[in-house]
């Protein structure tokens, strides 16, 4: 199909234009897929060449370096010390000593136990001192996994530092050869607050993130491949071991789970579907209604603008758990809402909003509506800021051209808003997928989905993947490994959606349109 010239394209009718665009899109798919694989291949090649370059650089440094450099390969920091950079040399040396000491004392042990995650479980032993049987804790799978991973990290850190040490030797030789001086300890200290200040500033936050988020996540990913749960918690009961992809098979299998009537996969599918529906409605109802309220308050001729905004903003101030818990009780069978409805004579019997398993959609819709109450003030704030930035003469021009209020909204306000808030909408969507508080505090997942609950622990009709995860973790069996599997799958879904949407977003394609 030939590509039309600009003028020819413009001549087509609306339907023809659409058809043209669609067919070009589909024709482009094979090319896109091919391009994707090519990119991966290119990436691999680049990675390979980079590694190759590093290795040859290291070898070259050894061969061409002087004796100080060669020694530094074995005694880190020697080169620095020998060339007068005492501070750096000492730091490198210290690191090497600590590392070697660690590896000898415990690192080696953890690494060796990693493949098996411990062999000897707790045992009963007779203690003469106490004249009774005492439980002796032997191997601890949890610790093995944890410290084993830490050891691997440590090793990687060591290799990196060693590489830096080698590189510095090479650079030092070059600098001295050209007659310049090396950086002294004082220079280094000064650069901590100057050109290397970013590293100083990032040190603490990044350490926190890596230790408290990245490592735990990595750990939990690994747990998904074990059978760590309440009965196999690694030391008091029995050890846990690697089970490979078993857990994933269980989760994604369509056959029944242990003794239940519904398979894991079916439950997962149900919960996933509701999670997506919920995220969609939660995000977009709040977005458009919040925008509508913002536009209403912002309109010329409306008084007490600040007052309206303050009232709405107050709801953000109140801690969410109070609002949510209280509102959830308001909708209880003997709660205020039912009381009010009955007083008005609109209903004769109390509506069980959150407990009626035969009308799951009642609970679901109620939850979405309550979420609107929570979310609008925040969205109103955001959209107000953006609305004020749209150039006024766009609207004036449209007015003169004859556009009605609705047309102005569709052709000017909406495109502009969607452009600016595109990325925000995406993060809002994924955030809502993981919006634990709203669902848990309002309904704790109720009403309970009996069919699904048997296999996979208690699951309700308003449960999101993440609340289900929480229940599994704190439930009777504490099936941590299942929780990890769900966590990983959630990540996959979120990552996929983000990738696709991010590439489709007009914000990215037409970024400069609005400058």
């Amino acid at each position: 199909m030939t590509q039309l010239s600009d003028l020819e394209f413009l001549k087509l009718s609306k339907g023809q234009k659409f058809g043209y665009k669609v067919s070009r899109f589909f024709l482009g798919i094979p090319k896109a897929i091919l391009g994707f694989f090519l990119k991966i291949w290119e990436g691999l090649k680049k990675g390979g060449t980079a590694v190759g370059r590093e290795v040859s650089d290291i070898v070259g440094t050894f061969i061409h370096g002087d004796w100080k450099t060669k020694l530094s390969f074995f005694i880190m920091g020697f080169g620095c010390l020998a060339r007068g950079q005492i501070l750096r040399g000492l730091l490198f040396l210290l690191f090497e000593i600590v590392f070697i000491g660690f590896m000898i004392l415990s690192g080696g042990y953890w690494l060796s136990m990693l493949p098996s995650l411990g062999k000897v479980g707790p045992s009963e032993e007779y203690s003469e001192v106490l004249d009774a049987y005492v439980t002796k804790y032997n191997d601890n799978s949890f610790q093995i996994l944890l410290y084993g991973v830490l050891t691997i990290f440590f090793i990687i850190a060591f290799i990196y530092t060693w590489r830096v040490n080698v590189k510095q030797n090479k650079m030092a030789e070059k600098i001295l050869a050209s007659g310049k001086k090396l950086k002294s300890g004082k220079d280094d200290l000064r650069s901590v607050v100057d050109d290397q200040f970013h590293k100083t500033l990032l040190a603490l936050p990044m350490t926190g993130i890596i230790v408290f988020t990245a490592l735990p996540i990595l750990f939990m990913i690994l747990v998904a491949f074990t059978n760590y749960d309440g009965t196999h918690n690694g030391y008091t009961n029995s050890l846990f071991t690697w089970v490979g992809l078993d857990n994933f098979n269980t989760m994604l299998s369509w056959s029944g789970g242990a003794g239940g009537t519904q398979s894991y996969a079916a439950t997962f599918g149900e919960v996933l579907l509701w999670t997506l529906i919920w995220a969609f409605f939660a995000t977009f109802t709040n977005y458009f209604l919040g925008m509508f309220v913002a536009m209403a308050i912002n309109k010329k001729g409306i008084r007490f603008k600040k007052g309206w905004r303050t009232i709405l903003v107050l709801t953000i101030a109140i801690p969410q758990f109070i609002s949510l818990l209280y509102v959830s009780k308001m909708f209880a069978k003997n709660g205020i809402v039912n009381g009010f409805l009955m007083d008005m004579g609109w209903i004769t019997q109390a509506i069980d909003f959150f407990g009626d398993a035969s009308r799951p959609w009642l609970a679901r819709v109620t939850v979405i509506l309550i979420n609107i109450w929570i979310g609008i003030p925040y969205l109103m704030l955001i959209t107000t800021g953006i609305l004020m930035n749209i150039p006024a003469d766009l609207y004036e021009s449209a007015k003169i051209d004859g556009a009605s209020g609705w047309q102005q909204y569709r052709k000017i306000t909406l495109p502009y808003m969607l452009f600016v808030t595109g990325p925000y909408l995406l993060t809002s969507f994924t955030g809502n997928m993981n919006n634990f508080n709203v669902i848990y505090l309002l309904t704790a997942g109720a009403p309970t989905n009996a069919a699904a609950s048997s296999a996979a622990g208690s699951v309700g009709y308003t449960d999101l993947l993440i609340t289900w995860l929480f229940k599994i973790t704190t439930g009777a069996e504490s099936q941590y490994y299942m929780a990890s599997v769900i966590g990983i799958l959630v990540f996959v879904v979120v990552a996929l959606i983000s990738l696709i949407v991010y590439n489709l977003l007009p914000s990215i394609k037409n970024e400069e349109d609005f400058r």
Partner: protein
Amino acid sequence: MSEATAKRHMGLKTSRAITNTAIHVLLIVISIIWLIPFVCIVLQSFRMESTGQVGYVVPKVWGTGNYVKLFETDFPRWYTNTFIAALATAVLQTIIVLCMSYTLSRFRFKMRQPLMRFMLILGMFPGMLTMIILYRVLKDLGLTQTNAVPGLILVYVASSGMGYYVSKGFFDTIPMSLDEAARVDGATRAKILYKIILPLSKPIVIYTVLTAFMGPWGDYVFARYIAFGTSAGKNVAVGLYDWLNKDQISSYYTMFCAGGVLVALPVTILFLFLQKYYVEGVTGGAVKG
């Protein structure tokens, strides 16, 4: 003038007046709906005739008994726990977030993009996953149950660097030419931060402190996990939540309302005073970042 033209001439002014009145009515309705739950909570906290959940709002017998009873429970302990946690978090988290967002905004270094992408991906994992292992680690360090507060603070603060978006968006709006002028004058990067950028950043600093302070008051998940077992280690969220479960609600409902009011009070008052900064933070940085 013909009738048709007369109709056209009604256009501008009257149609605008009608629309505006309609909107005012709508806004009044919205305000009422939004404030209802809070009005209800406050009213019910003064109810003396029963302590369970009922279907009406206005108390028949008024009194402050519920508030008094609060002090006979562990509520004061929970309150102090949460308050200390909030205070510490407000300070520490602000420092960490500002360090992170300032760096990402001002400096261009090789690992910048990979770093931001890395944190983006980390954020895609449900935060709850980390709970289990963090609990174990904290337990081994003795920072759980009765000593839950330091443990909570540590967890809240440690990974707070990931929440840099809004602050970074704000810093992006400060022109780089200020930094450059200072460098020409001979200032180190650290000095630029203290003497130039921070004084200009009052709104975003206040915003960050405010949101950091508000966080611990509403955390249910993590606080529950860490305080596991003991009552003294709970924070207000966990404590009040338990009062509303099936066994306790009949005696504790009104106390929940009273407790809720006390919890909401400091945060709301703080918020009202600092509202301007919060709004500026949200509208300015939230979407640009």
